[in-house]
């Protein structure tokens, strides 16, 4: 059995309670894994701990218990191999959009010439559609969507092994969102990159992900299910809705978010079981049996 690229084991996070009150346990004894090159989305209601998990993966926060192993090494701090698009963009406000991107590129490639850094940064800004003078403006002079695009360009331009995206398209209008989703798919499929993305948007998750992790509500949240998206690639935004699997998966996700995320929440002694693998879109029930051993429990809800 080969080890997964990223193994999250026994991960718990507690925050000290306000004014010495009860500590807040965000999640406890979480176990799941991500394969190399996989595109994983995580969905759950606000406050369940998605960003907390992401911060731990980024190495910016330490778990109270457990740990994360990536590529055979324990994650012990931030690294350029893990690029982050923060929920609040986190641009440096005293630098122009372009300078924010070159900031990252220069950190990644200290040996590059100015011209190389500039060219590379410009390429990624073009990719997110930030050109024609907008790249020379400071973040305060850009709209929320434009700032988010700069933040995406900064992370993509570094070309990390693992891209961590915290609701990256939340502030974008539908058109830009579509363009950048397509770009993300293109970049990802043409590389060895692994993507871990938080989203609120069920359709977006189905379009992009190989697998969607579903989290129950917090506190004591857990990753309850791992939904495999059995829709062949390349996926076209307009085509995908005609796939029979699409609505089965979609209904499953919506049903989880509407009902079961609450029903399953607050369970303390789940014994650290990994998420149940679900394949609402699978046509052939036999295929389910051929899932890798790292996903032990198989439940089909496809009727």
């Amino acid at each position, binding site marked *: 059995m080969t080890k997964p690229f990223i193994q999250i084991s026994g991960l718990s996070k507690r925050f000290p309670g306000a004014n010495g009150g009860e500590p807040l346990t965000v999640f406890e004894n979480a176990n799941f894994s991500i394969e190399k090159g996989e595109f994983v989305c995580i969905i759950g209601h606000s406050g369940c701990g998605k960003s907390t998990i992401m911060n731990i993966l980024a190495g*910016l926060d330490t778990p109270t218990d457990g740990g994360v192993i990536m590529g055979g090494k324990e994650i012990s701090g*931030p*690294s*350029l191999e*893990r690029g982050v698009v923060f929920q*609040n963009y986190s641009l440096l*406000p*005293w630098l122009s959009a372009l300078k924010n991107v070159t*900031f990252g590129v220069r950190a990644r490639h200290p040996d590059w010439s100015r011209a190389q850094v500039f060219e590379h940064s410009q390429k990624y800004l073009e990719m997110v559609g930030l050109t024609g003078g907008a790249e020379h403006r400071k973040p*305060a002079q850009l709209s929320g969507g434009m700032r988010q695009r700069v933040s995406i360009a900064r992370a993509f331009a570094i070309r990390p092994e693992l891209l961590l995206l915290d609701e990256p398209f939340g502030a974008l209008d539908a058109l830009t969102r579509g363009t950048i989703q397509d770009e993300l798919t293109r970049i990802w499929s043409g590389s060895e990159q692994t993507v871990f993305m938080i989203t609120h948007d069920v359709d977006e998750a189905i379009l992009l992900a190989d697998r969607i992790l579903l989290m129950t509500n917090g506190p004591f949240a857990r990753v309850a299910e791992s939904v495999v998206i059995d829709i062949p690639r390349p996926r076209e935004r307009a085509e995908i809705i005609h796939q029979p699997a699409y609505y089965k998966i979609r209904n499953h996700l919506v049903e989880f978010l509407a009902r079961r995320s609450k029903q399953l929440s607050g369970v303390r002694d789940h014994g650290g079981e990994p998420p149940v693998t679900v394949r609402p879109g699978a046509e052939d029930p036999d295929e389910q049996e051929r899932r890798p051993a790292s996903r032990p429990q198989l439940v089909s809800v496809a009727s």
Partner: protein
Amino acid sequence: MNGIALSDNTKAFLLSIALLVAMLGIWELATPAVKSAGELTEYEMLTGGGGEQARVPPPSQVIEKAVKELSNPFYDNGPNDKGIGIQLAYSLYRVLSGYFLAALIAIPIGFLIGMSPIAYKALDPFIQVLRPISPLAWMPLALFVIKDSQASAIFVIFICSIWPMLINTAFGVANVRKDWVNVAKTHELGQLKTAFLVILPAAAPTILTGMRISIGIAWLVIVAAEMLVGGTGIGYYVWNEWNNLDLTSVIFSILMIGIVGMMLDTVFAYIQRAVQFQE
């Protein structure tokens, strides 16, 4: 929009001029005209104008004095008769050397204190006790230890400018948004690079505020310090002219102190605007 702003500015400017003219007018009228030198008796001249000279002079006389002084600001006729430019230059020299010495120490130390909560707590009591001490209270000690009045004046400037810069730097550094530090971390920047590329620009507006407060205080203090140590400088000049009962010169130099102080502040306001950023 722009047109309205401009006309508001114009209105304010016109009002300023009107106020100035009105004030000067009232001042002129409130001060009885001085007899010209020709009308004075020998005795009156010997006693310094029979009391008239000791009166507050009218603005016309101050302006006359200003024109005369400013047309030849750098003359030097010995220790008690130097041009206003020379006196101001001495003061500026002391202020700037004490000030930059203070900045050289306050900003790096403030940086370290801001980075380390333990250092912050450990040094805080010292800062709290040293900060409220009037800088002039250090003068006797400085004169005794340094044994040089010039250096003592610089030391007094040093000690009064250090606190606002130290405290603001520490505060600015300690309060840099965590998000920005996280950006530095995820890009694997070392401590030095994080300090220069992220923390310094993030804290620069706060640091500049401290520097601007400091230069203001330093300019306030230099006048008093020079009155004490004597010899040269605008503070000494004011005191000397007061001893000569030359109130015209006193008022003129007071105005010059104000104008130079304003210019210093303008320079720092300009730098402050240059490092300011909008979140």
